[in-house]
């Protein structure tokens, strides 16, 4: 039992929730993610993917059960402690204030500020760490631009830079490539995959594109109507009849000609 516990970055124990005013309930869900895995959460609109991410990030409190990240119940952590374990790239961000890219990314270091740092006239992250993150996410040349003036791809990369700056082992992504063109989408996912391969991150990503999901994720979790109905390796899950059933589409399973990874395409 102990050895199994040490193996999990994320554990969900009987997590359930009910949306205020809705008859449908969410869960109970029990599942785990081993460190260094890239897991994608798929399922139709309204299946509960975003809800699961919000429960893990302690934005909402589950009715029953617990969310354990790195052996700690997320609800017992302080806000700063939680931000050192979990980072989150949201689907969209709506702000009417012109913070620059640099100022947004610096906020990733907020959770490490001591009271002395806060009282002094001092930035929240070291310049060298800031520079390497800005360069790796290819937003270095945008650092003095206002966040509100960025294109979709640039804004997403900035939010990823901000999340990476938190140096949290678990990264949650909520449909990160929605509204991105294929070029930007691929670069974004390549970047995340590289961090996973380097052993720096464990990822749980809500995602919609069944053609590309198997190219990046090791493992798939399938959700429908608030329930986790199927989990497993991408190669086993994608061809499963259940997928056709929940989307009501006869997808054609394929194998990527070069990487041999599984894909589903429209019939």
């Amino acid at each position, binding site marked *: 039992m102990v050895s199994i516990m040490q193996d999990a970055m994320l554990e969900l124990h009987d997590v359930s929730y009910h949306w*205020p005013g809705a008859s449908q309930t969410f869960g109970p869900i029990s599942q785990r993610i081993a460190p260094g895995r890239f897991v994608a959460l798929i399922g139709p609109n309204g299946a509960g993917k975003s809800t699961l991410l919000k429960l893990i*990030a*302690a*934005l*909402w*409190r589950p009715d029953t059960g617990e969310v354990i990240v790195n052996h700690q119940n997320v609800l017992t952590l*302080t*806000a*700063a402690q*939680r*931000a*050192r374990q*979990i*980072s*989150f790239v*949201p689907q969209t*961000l*709506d*702000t*009417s*204030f*012109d*913070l*620059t890219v640099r*100022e*947004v990314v610096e*906020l*990733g270091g*907020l*959770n490490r*500020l001591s*009271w002395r740092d*806060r*009282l002094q*006239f001092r930035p*929240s992250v070291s310049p060298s760490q800031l520079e390497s993150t800005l360069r790796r996410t290819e937003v270095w040349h945008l650092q*003095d631009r206002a966040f509100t003036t960025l294109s979709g791809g640039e804004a997403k990369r900035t939010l990823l830079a*901000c*999340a990476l700056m*938190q140096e949290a082992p678990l990264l949650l992504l909520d449909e990160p490539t929605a509204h991105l063109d294929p070029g930007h989408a691929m670069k974004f996912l390549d970047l995340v995959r590289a961090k996973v391969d380097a052993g720096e991150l464990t990822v749980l990503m809500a995602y919609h594109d069944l053609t590309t999901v198997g190219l990046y994720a090791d493992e798939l979790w399938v959700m429908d109507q608030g329930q986790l109905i199927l989990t497993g390796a991408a190669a086993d899950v994608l061809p499963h009849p259940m997928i056709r059933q929940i989307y009501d589409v006869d997808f054609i399973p394929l194998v990527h000609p070069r990487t041999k990874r599984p894909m589903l395409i429209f019939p």
Partner: protein
Amino acid sequence: MPRTGKSIVNFTAAFSVLLFALLLGVMHGPTPIPLRTVIDRIISPNASIDSVIVWDIRLPELVAAALVGGGLAVAGAVMQALLKNPLADPYIVGASAGAGLGATLMQEFLPFVNMMAPGAFVGALAAVFLSYLLSRGRGTTSMLTLILAGYAVGVILTSVMTFLMLLNRQDLTTIFAWEIGGINGVTWSRVAVVVVLMTVSLLVIWPYAHDMNALLLGEEQAHHLGVPVRRVQFVLLVSASLLTGAAVYISGLIGFVGLVIPHVVRRLNGPNHRQLIPLAFLIGAAFLTLAELVATSMPVIGPIPVGLVTAFLGGPYFLYLLVRQNRWKQGWSR
């Protein structure tokens, strides 16, 4: 780092303007005092008439104007970050109505002691607390509900105040003058109260500058970044109300400073609160000192309340901002 260099220039400029405004204010008045004498008397006060005018009449009022301007500007910047709305002001969550009612109650029931200002102060805090409690929901506090609750609380308190004013007509002028906002008859002991209250609230606000930046990205994103959103909102709301209350205590309800100054500073220097907060204090202080100078040197009609000057300047600027924000939202070029 272009912004850092720019902000050093902005800080130096704001500080110089404030110093200039204060010196000009001490020199200027019914009895003009030359600059040389002003500096001599500030450095070494004596029993001369000039010294009394400088130290007991002009300086307390000017320092009060500077503190009120700076305090309201910072309170405005904090409220705008909390409500994620650049058009919010320190009075938006019912503080002004609460202050008005507090002052009226004191005037009605304890007219023999001069408790109007402390009454205003307590009233402002109570109204903000009431709005906050009403807007507390499951999880985080809805800032939109806070604005609406503040509005409703404001309407109710104002109607109670109007009723009390109708019961006791002879106090209309006092209350009316106080509602416009003005700085007169200030003593050093009252300035000291304001200095203490403002120092405490500014020291509480300052370490949260990073968190206010995070709140600009929305409550959810601030949560993910490690901001204890609800606690930070509460602490900032109370400190901003304390700043507002301190300003209201000495000057009544001076409008538009808290709304307009943070806006001007953001356009000059960007929305980063680590620079916005101190810069808003300096520029707010300089602005209200200059406005006070204008108010006390009106030709023909004599001195007018400084609240009239700020409303006259700030009102049109507010409308300009409103139209500009509206056009921008509709996709027009900025």
